[in-house]
C-alpha cells in the first residue's frame, strides 16, 4: 500500500520455488538483469507449497498482482510438486476469473535455475500487465486502507 498522495505503484508478490525459480531470480541478479522493484519475492520450497489462501491473502493486504514460479513441469525437485501446483492454480485462477477479477492479476510461470533472463523478462512483462490493469480494487480488504 502506498501513502495516498504518492502516485500509485503496483505491488507484486512472487512466490518462487527454492530449487528452480528462486535460483533463476538469483541468476537474474548475478547477471544484473533489471526488473522493477515492485516485485517482492517469497521463497517457498516448491510451487506446491503455495496455498490459494496465500494468494488471496496477498490481494487482501493490498497486492496488485501475484505470480507463482516453479520448476518446469517434469523438472520438479520433488518430482510432482509443480504438477499439483499447476492444477491448483488453474482452478483458483479460473475461480477468480469467474468472480470477475481482472484476467492477468495472477500468473504462473515456470522458470528454471538457468533462466535468469526469463525470470527478469517474466517479471517485467508481469509488472507491465499489472500496471495496465491498475490498482487491485476487487479483492482488497477495505480494512487495510490507510484512512
Amino acid at each position, binding site marked *: 500500500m502506498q501513502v495516498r498522495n504518492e502516485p500509485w505503484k503496483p505491488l507484486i508478490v512472487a512466490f518462487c520455488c527454492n530449487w528452480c525459480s528462486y535460483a533463476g531470480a538469483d541468476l537474474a541478479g548475478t547477471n544484473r538483469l533489471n526488473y522493477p522493484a515492485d516485485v517482492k519475492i517469497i521463497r517457498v520450497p516448491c510451487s506446491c507449497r503455495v496455498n490459494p489462501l496465500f494468494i488471496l491473502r496477498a490481494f487482501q493486504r493490498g497486492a496488485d498482482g501475484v505470480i507463482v514460479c516453479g520448476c518446469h513441469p517434469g523438472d520438479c525437485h520433488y518430482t510432482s510438486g509443480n504438477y499439483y501446483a499447476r492444477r491448483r492454480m488453474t482452478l483458483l485462477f479460473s475461480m477468480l476469473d*469467474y468472480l470477475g477479477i481482472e484476467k492477468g492479476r495472477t500468473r504462473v510461470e515456470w522458470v528454471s535455475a538457468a533462466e535468469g533472463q526469463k525470470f527478469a523478462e517474466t517479471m517485467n512483462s508481469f509488472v507491465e500487465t499489472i500496471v495496465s490493469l491498475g490498482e487491485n480494487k476487487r479483492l482488497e480488504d477495505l480494512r487495510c486502507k490507510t484512512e
Partner: protein
Amino acid sequence: MQDRMIARAKELLENGTVDRVMGWKKGEFIYDVTPAVFYTADELEKDFVMNAFTAANVSKYLIAETKKPGRILAFLKPCDSYSFRQLMNEHRVDRDNVYIVGIPSWGKADMEKIRALGITGITDITEKDGDLLVTTVMRETHAVKKYDVYLEKCKNCKSKRIVVYDELLDGENGEDVPNNRFDEVAKIEAMPPDERFAFWRGELSRCIRCNACRNVCPACSCEKCVFDNPKSGVENKAPADDFEENLFHIIRAYHVAGRCTDCGECSRVCPQHIPLHLLNRKFIKDMNELYGDYQAGETEQVRHPVTNYRDDDAEPGIVYTRGGSGR
C-alpha cells in the same frame, strides 16, 4: 413409500440387523422435518416421515453415528449415497457399521419457493399426484406443481442412481439423469467480467456468515475448520467486509473441490439464498473440462482431480485464453 420404509426398518430392527435407524422426524408442519435417529418400532410409527420435504442429506450424520457401537440403518437417497461414498473414500465413515437401504427420490420441494408464490398463513400441505395442495388459514387451497417448487438441487438432479447400498427399497436402481446443471455456470462465464463481478458482489454481499453452508456440507468434515481456528490466521466470525465474503466462499469451494458431490445442500440451507452451488459447480465444470469427467463419490477412486495430475495438463494461463464469449 413412508409406510414401506417404516415396515422395512421395523423388520431390520427386529431381526437384529441394525439397532437403530437414521431417518427424518415429523415436525410442527409438513416441511420442518429433522434428521433423527430412531431406536424403537414405536418411535418409527409415531414420528418417521418421508415426504416432499425430507431433503436433508443424512450422510454427514453417519460420520459420528458409525463410530458408535452397534449398527445403524440409513435410508439414502441417490444424492445422499454419493456423499456417503465420498466419505467412505475419505475414511470418514465406517461402512461396516451401517446398513444402507437405497431409496428413490423424485425431487424435493422448497418451502421458500412456495412462500415466494405469495401464499401466507399456511395451515396444511398435502401431496397428490406430484402436486402439492396448500391450504391457508383463509380456507383457500392452492395447487402447486411440485416441479415448479423443486429445490435447485432436484431441478438439476444429476443421477437417480444409488451408488452404495446393502439393499434397494424398490429392488431396482435408478440411472444417471441427463441434466443441464452447468448451464447457469456457463451463463455467468459468458458475462463480461464487470458484470460477473457485479453479479457475485450482489450475491455474496448477502452472506451473514452463519456457516450453514459449511456445516451442512458432507465434504466439510474437518475436525476444525480453518475459519474457526484462531491459529490458522484466517479465522473470522463475521463477514467483516467485501473481501471476507470472497475469501470465505472461494476457499470453502476450493477445499471441497474434487470432493464435492454436488448434493446441493449448501444452496438449500442458505438463509440468504446465495447460489453457492454455482461456485462448487464451477470447479466441477472446470475439472471436467480440463482433466476429464469426474464425479466425486461415484466410484471408489480416492485420487480426485485436485490430488492428481497428468504430465500434459493445461497450463494455468488457459484460464485467460480459452473460449466463451465475454472472456
